[in-house]
C-alpha cells in the first residue's frame, strides 16, 4: 500500500456509493450509485496490483451487469409509492438493527485480525490469473462452465414460450 491517501479516497468513494444504493429514493439512482461503488472497488484492486480483476470489475460488472440492472429497473418502472411499503418504520428499524449488529461484529473482528503468515501478494496480471485458472483452479473453472450451461438451459426453458 504505497499511498494511504489514494486508498482512503477510493475506500470513501466505494462506501459512499454503497450508501447511495441504500438511501436512493429511486431505483435508477440506486443502480447508478452501485456503478460508483464498483469503480471505487476496482480502484482498490489496482492498488493491490490485481490489474486483471480491476479491469474485469469495470468491464463485466460496471459495464454489462449494471446495464442489465438498469434495463430491468426501467422495464419494471416501479413508482416510489409502490416501494414505500418496503420503507415502513418497522422494516427500516429491523434492517438497521440487523445491519448495525453485523457491522459492529465485523468491525470488532476486523480490528483483531492479524495478517496471516504465508500470504504472498499475487501478481494480478492476465498471465498470472490465466496460469492459476488452468493449473490450480482448473477443476472449479471447468465446473463453473457447467454452471453457466445450467444458467443457459434455465434461461431458455423458463423464458421461451415455445420449445
Amino acid at each position, binding site marked *: 500500500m504505497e499511498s494511504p491517501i489514494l486508498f482512503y479516497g477510493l475506500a470513501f468513494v466505494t462506501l459512499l456509493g454503497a450508501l447511495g444504493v441504500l438511501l436512493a429514493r429511486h431505483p435508477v439512482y440506486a443502480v447508478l450509485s452501485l456503478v460508483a461503488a464498483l469503480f471505487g472497488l476496482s480502484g482498490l484492486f489496482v492498488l493491490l496490483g490485481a490489474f486483471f480483476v480491476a479491469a474485469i470489475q469495470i468491464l463485466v460488472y460496471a459495464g454489462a451487469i449494471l446495464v442489465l440492472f438498469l434495463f430491468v429497473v426501467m422495464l419494471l418502472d416501479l413508482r416510489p409509492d409502490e416501494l414505500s411499503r418496503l420503507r415502513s418504520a418497522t422494516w427500516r428499524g429491523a434492517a438497521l438493527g440487523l445491519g448495525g449488529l453485523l457491522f459492529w461484529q465485523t468491525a470488532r473482528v476486523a480490528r483483531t485480525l492479524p495478517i496471516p503468515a504465508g500470504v504472498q501478494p499475487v501478481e494480478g496480471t492476465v498471465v498470472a490469473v490465466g496460469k492459476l485458472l488452468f493449473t490450480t483452479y482448473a477443476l472449479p473453472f471447468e*465446473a463453473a462452465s457447467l454452471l453457466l450451461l445450467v444458467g443457459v438451459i434455465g434461461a431458455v426453458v423458463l423464458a421461451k414460450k415455445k420449445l
Partner: protein
Amino acid sequence: MMPPHLWYLAPELWVAGLAALILLVDLACKGKGSREIPLGAAIALLPVAPILLLQVNLGTRTLLGGMYRLDPLALFFKVIFVAAGILVLVMTREFSRTLERAHAEFTALILLALLGMLLAASSASFLMLFVALELITISFYVMTAYLKTDARSLEAGLKYLILGSIASGLFLYGIAWVYGAAGTTSFAGLRQALAGRTTLSPGLALGLLLIVSGITFKAACVPLHLWVPDVYEGAPTPVTAFLSVGSKSAGFVAALRVLHELFLPASNQWAGLIAWLAGLTILYGNLCAIPQKNIKRLMGYSSIGHAGYILIGVAAASSLGSAATSFYLAGYLVSNLTIFLVISAFWQAVGSDEMADYAGLSRRSPFLAAAMFVALLSLAGVPPMVGFFGKFLLLLSAIQEGFLWVAIVGAAAVVISLYYYLLLVATMYADPPKDPTPIPVSLPVRLALYACLAGILGIGIFQEPCVRLSLAAVRSFF
C-alpha cells in the same frame, strides 16, 4: 489406458458426459422419443455404482491442484447421491408425461445437479465446494420453476432463488473471512493451520458462523428453513424428492467436511450452538407438520425435523456422531424416496397431493399403501426399519458427548412424528375411498419401490455392514 487422474474422476465425467449426450441426442432427434430419456438416463447411471465400488481400492488421494479428493467419506456420499439420482430419474419418467415440453433438458438438469453433488462430496477446497454447491442450487432453481403454467411452481422457484442467493452470499462471505484469517482455502492447509487450536480467532469464528448458516440453508435447518414448505409444495414431485434427499445430503457432507474435518479441534466453540440448532429444528419441523393437509408440505416439515436429527450427529463431533450422520442419511434416502415414489405414482393417477384424497389407498393399491406404511414407520423410527437404528445411533452419540437434553428432545419428537405419520396411515387404511378405481403402478416404479423397501428392511435388520462402512468413512477425521 486412461491417465490415472481421469480414473479418479470417472463418476463425475460419466455424469457430465451423459448430460451433454442427452442434450445433443435430443437435438438430433428433434425431441422425438424424448419421453424415454429419463429412464434411459437412469439405466445409463447404473454403471457408476460398480465404478464407485472399484474406487474403494484407490485409497485417499488429493489431486488436481488440491481441489479434488477421493476418500471413503466422498465415496460413501457418492453412493447415496447416485442412488438418489437413479430413483429420481425413474420418478421423472412418470412425471414427464405431464410435462408439456423440454423433457431432455429436465433430465440434463437432474444430472447436472447430481454432478454438483458428486463434486461437493469430493471437494478439497472451499472454492471447489462453493462452485459445487452453486451448481446444485442453480439447477434446482430452474427445476423448481419448471411448470411455467403453475403459479405455485413459479412462486416456489422465485422464493428459492431469492433465499438461496442470500444463503450463497453468506457462505461466500464466510469463506472470505476464513481466507482472511487463515490465508488459505484448501482443506489440507486449513487442517494444518487449525490443528491443536481449541479457541478460534474472531475472524475464523465469524467465518465459520457464516459458512454454517449457508450450510443450514442447503440442509434445511433452523434458522434458514423458511423456504422449505413452499418450495416442497410447489416444485414438481421428482424435484422435491431430489431436494429432500440429494440437496440435504450435500449440505450435510459439507457440514461434516467443514466442522468435523477442519474445525474439530475447536469443537467446544461450536458444538453447543449446533446442538441448539438441532433441538430447535427438530421441534419446529415436527410441531409444524401436525396441522398439514398437503402431503408434499407435510414431507417438507418432516424433512426439517429429520435435518434436526442429523444435526445432532454433527453437534456430537465424535466418530460415532459423524458415522451416525452418514448412516442416517443413507436410511433417510431409501425411506424418503419410497414415500416420494408413492406420492408421484398417486399424483399420476389421481392428480392430487391432498392428504384427504389418500383415503382408502389400501383398497385402491395395496402395494403402494404398504410401501408408504413401511417407509413412514421407518421415518418415525420404529424397529426393525432403518430409521430406528439411525435415530438410535444419533441419540447415543448425543448422550456420549453430554448433550442429554437434545437426546430427550429427539426422543420426545419421535412421539410427535408418530402421531402425524400414523394419521396418514389411518387415512390410507381406515377411511373409505372416494373413488375405488385401482391405481396402476408401472414396472420401473415397482422395481424402484422394491429396491427402496429392500433397503429399509435390509439395512434395518442387518445394520452391521452399513455401520461399519459409515465408521470407515469418517475414520480419518478423528
